[in-house]
């Protein structure tokens, strides 16, 4: 799994780089598309023209890799929810913790920086 940078600003460069990946994730807000994705994830990724790296990140659920390839968490979260994964789970992935450890860090007042 890819190691996360501090943050992933969704600027115009990331918008260009992640266009297909974000478009695909966005489509999952429709129930019919959620079913079609689940039936054949690889074919569904191809429909949206994901790069081989983006497709690999999606199929392997490399959540940090998706961000490195231009994904935005507001978009990839729709895939996480389809998998039954919470924002605490994703927070754990980005920070090297389990979902439970991450949730506990939040209950303890959150993570402090600087």
């Amino acid at each position, binding site marked *: 799994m890819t190691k996360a940078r501090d*943050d992933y600003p969704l600027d115009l460069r990331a918008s260009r780089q992640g266009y297909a990946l*974000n478009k695909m994730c966005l489509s999952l807000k429709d129930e019919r598309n959620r079913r079609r994705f689940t039936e054949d994830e690889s074919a569904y990724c191809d429909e949206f023209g994901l790069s081989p790296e983006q497709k690999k990140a999606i199929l392997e659920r490399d959540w940090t890799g998706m961000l490195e390839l231009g994904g935005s968490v507001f978009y990839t979260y729709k895939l996480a929810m389809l998998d039954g994964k919470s924002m605490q789970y994703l*927070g754990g992935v980005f920070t090297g913790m389990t979902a439970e450890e991450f949730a506990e860090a939040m*209950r303890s007042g959150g993570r402090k920086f600087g």
Partner: protein
Amino acid sequence: MARVIWGLATSHVPSIGAAMDNGKTAEPYWKPLFDGYAPAREWMAGHRPDVAVIVYNDHANALDLDLVPTFAVGTAESYEVADEGWGRRPVPPVAGAPELSEHLVRRLVDDSFDIATFHGLDVDHGLTVPLSVYCPDPGEQWPCPVVPVLVNVIRHPQPTAARCYALGQAIGRAIRSFPEDLGVAVFGTGGMSHQLAGARAGLINTPFDRMFLEKIETDPEALARLTREEYVAQAGTEGIELIMWLVMRGAMDERITRIHETYHVPASNTAAGLALFENGGAPA
């Protein structure tokens, strides 16, 4: 003439809505937050507005990266509740206030705010959670119609905090020139400090949030001077949503009266804040 009667600044975290939708507000995780809301809710229930102007951002539900308006106003007669990928919230559709919307659009454009308009708009948690914070049990319909005001806080470059404050001032002028006797509530939503993605995920900056909660009343100009980069560094990638509180503040008088505030960590991966202000200074 219409007038702004109160302003509500509140977080709009989806899980706050889900806690209400799933009857979890009395559970230990959520109880402190909802107990903190109670005095504000009681006061607002006794001061019902005729219309609410709700400043919020869409989270990849009505909008995607094809078209990202910096500022937009909804102009429809009603707004459906968005399916954000896990089914619609079980709350009523949102009635619009199209005549007030039209007036705001015209006045804002004349005031040099070149805003976009939405005639078709599914509203997501950014708008419906603040409505639920105001009114937890709406029944068949929300207590008042709504004018949605959308701000791009997700895709860089977001508008400056100063521009958001100025937009709020223009919205205030526009409301005060609407020739109907309406009491208007203005909601500024989002925040407080939080970051969802990257190695800084889980960031909470309580000293910054406390400072913001104070200065939103007493020194909004200082908050308007903070740069985009300062908001992101201090409050997190998504904490920049706080610039939408400045739109609400700008629409209100220079002097406002704090009715209630509450602050709680965590709500999901965020610091949840609420501040309720009556417009104008304290009665003598």
